[in-house]
């Protein structure tokens, strides 16, 4: 029986079985990971959006910040899966606000030092949240430091310059820019993009990493056609 009878029947059956095997390997190694990746992205975006409903005026904030951050990070030479992680971090950075009282988030009067401390705790809370999830644990540092300034005046740890993870430095610029041009309870009216750009430029070197600001402004110029002159004129 061990002489090989490669009859058409055998060849067809073998072919069918092999194609099933190949198909299922393709599905489990290529299709499934892609599907799961998109599921993560979608779900994290939705959860971030759910937290944003607490904080009036920030709906869509995380998503816009994520877009800007990813683009700036790409221009700074970040690639591949690292870029994807930064995108998650951007979406998740304000998750900590879920545990900050809503009244505080929407307060238009100046905050007392105590309230200010609670509001600032959102960076730490968000980092804790992210650290608790194995899939996202590597984002802890990025989320924790997304409100640090280059000159060491930010929170929670007062890190300065290169001590701050690059992704956090990018996030800081992107988040501040988006906050400036949106309606927020703490400023009377949103700035125009030109004014916001000017504000960011003024902060370069003090609050923001100059290299990040440069790339960020280049990106805005390329995407929205704001030329340097226009920005200067504003």
């Amino acid at each position, binding site marked *: 029986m061990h002489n090989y*009878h490669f009859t058409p029947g055998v060849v067809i059956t073998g072919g069918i079985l092999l194609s099933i095997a190949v198909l299922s390997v393709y599905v489990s190694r290529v299709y499934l990971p892609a599907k799961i990746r998109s599921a993560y992205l979608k779900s994290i975006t939705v959860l971030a959006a759910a937290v944003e409903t607490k904080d009036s005026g920030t709906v869509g904030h995380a998503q816009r910040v994520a877009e800007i951050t990813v683009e700036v990070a790409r221009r700074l030479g970040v690639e591949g899966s690292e870029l994807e992680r930064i995108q998650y971090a951007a979406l998740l950075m304000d998750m900590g606000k879920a545990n900050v009282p809503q009244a505080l988030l929407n307060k238009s009067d100046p905050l007392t030092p*105590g309230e200010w401390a609670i509001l600032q705790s959102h960076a730490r809370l968000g980092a804790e*949240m992210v650290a608790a999830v194995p899939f996202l644990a590597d984002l802890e540092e990025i989320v924790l430091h997304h409100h640090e300034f280059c000159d060491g005046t930010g929170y929670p740890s007062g890190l300065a310059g290169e001590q701050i993870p690059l992704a956090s430095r990018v996030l800081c610029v992107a988040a501040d820019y988006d906050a400036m041009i949106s309606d927020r309870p703490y400023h009377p009216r949103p700035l125009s993009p030109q004014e916001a750009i000017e504000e960011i430029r003024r902060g370069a070197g003090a609050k923001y990493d100059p290299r990040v600001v440069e790339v960020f402004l280049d990106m805005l110029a390329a995407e929205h056609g704001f030329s340097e002159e226009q920005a200067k004129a504003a």
Partner: protein
Amino acid sequence: MQVDLRLYKVVVGFLFACAVGVTAVVWTHVPLVGNPWPGALQFIVLTAVVELFAVDLREGKCTSVSPASPIFWVATCVLGPLAAVVVSVGSAAVSLSAKCACFHASRAWQRRRDRGRETGEPVAESGLSEAVFRSVSNIGSPWKVESLMITTFYLASYVASVVLDVGPAGLAYYYLGGRFLIDPGRDFNVLQNFAFPFAALVCVSGFAHLAEYALIMSSMDPIPGAKGFYGVLLRMRLAVVETGLPIVKGQMFLSAVALPLAYLYSQIGLLGFVLAITPVLALRDFFSQWVEEKTAYLNTITTLATYMQHYHPYTRGHLKRVADMSERLARELRLPVESIRHMNAASFLHDIGKIGVSEEILDKPAQLTDEEWDKIKEHPVKGAEIISHLEFLEGMVDWIKYHHKWYNGSGYPATSGDGSEIPIEAAIIATADAFDAMTDDRELTIEWKCDCCGFQPDEGQRPALCPECGAEKRRRYREPRTQDDAIDELRRGVGSQFHPQVVKAFLCMVERDGIRLNA
């Protein structure tokens, strides 16, 4: 799982005797055709390999038909029943000892790595060695050594079950006119000499499996209130009812694997075996990958969602208890596997809609105004809205939406239905949630901490005003009820607030296992 040891030993002894008897009959009554032994050796090695990479997809039940069964069937109809019995016992021995060896190897490896870490000695950990370590420790499983006695009986039952899966089926195949494909002889008629006897073989093997399982189960998991012989019968009946259908389905699937295997093996030998088994392994890999990825995804989402509701320190404990209780209730009510698997996530997510409701309303110690109450009543719909956007969780949208809807149709959200639109999963969450909220010792279990400045007084003190900043302590809760009171409350609500079936299952379960499993 509780085991009636005396009965277990009797059952295993009986099964083992049956296995020996069947083997004897096979030996004396079925003639050997050709020389099946080289083929048998190939089968042993290959089956052991397949078993090693088998993935356990069972939901904590021993109902699945072994992935090796189609191989044994093929061994029966190609090599003959005696060779098939030898193959089944041989491959069981090989794969069990290989698993044991892998277990010990991975433990030794782990120990060496731990030691290396403690002493700070660099341990070479390349990606490849990590992968090998992973797969070795995945394969490894210990022999269940509690005592030598138990191990002996476990092995005896294992051997008996593989022999009984194969032996009687082989006899049926032979006596119904099946010929062995190793040497089918003249006038071989595919229908008469293979297809029909093969169908009989599959049926007998499935039936034997069911009978064995019922016998083994008769010694496990005593049912309260049913003692003695009646209890044993009841357990057997339960085992048959619970596993009958899955076994039939499994047999059908496995014969789809066995037929091409038999065909290809008899035509092109070893290569055919490999060709036929590859898609099975690939499919298993796909399923395990799918289950693993989905579990990781669900865990990620539930953890995030839980942390999002972490503003109240007590919520986590509450959600955890609700999740445990709901999952147990779903099992008790014998809901589909998919529902049981999602119950946990759904319980953690059920109040996610409260994220949009301000804490001042949620925590308000005084009576709520109508407006505020309306805000709170929105949370199931808001939650359902959030869930509906989460991938893979579409099925639980209605569970969340209706978890404050009463059985008689009152409650919220207001719908035109009479309560029949409420899925039973929502009723489960509602019951578990209500029970835990009633018995929860909230104020006492949380640390006193100022909402405003975060000041914490010495242990045991619970001032009404924060001594540090003078802020009023906002959260106050009603006194928790005792568990008996809460159970009475559930009983009173049957048919109006609570689903009768769920409460019935709840009472049953609590009486049998207690409120909490590990308590």
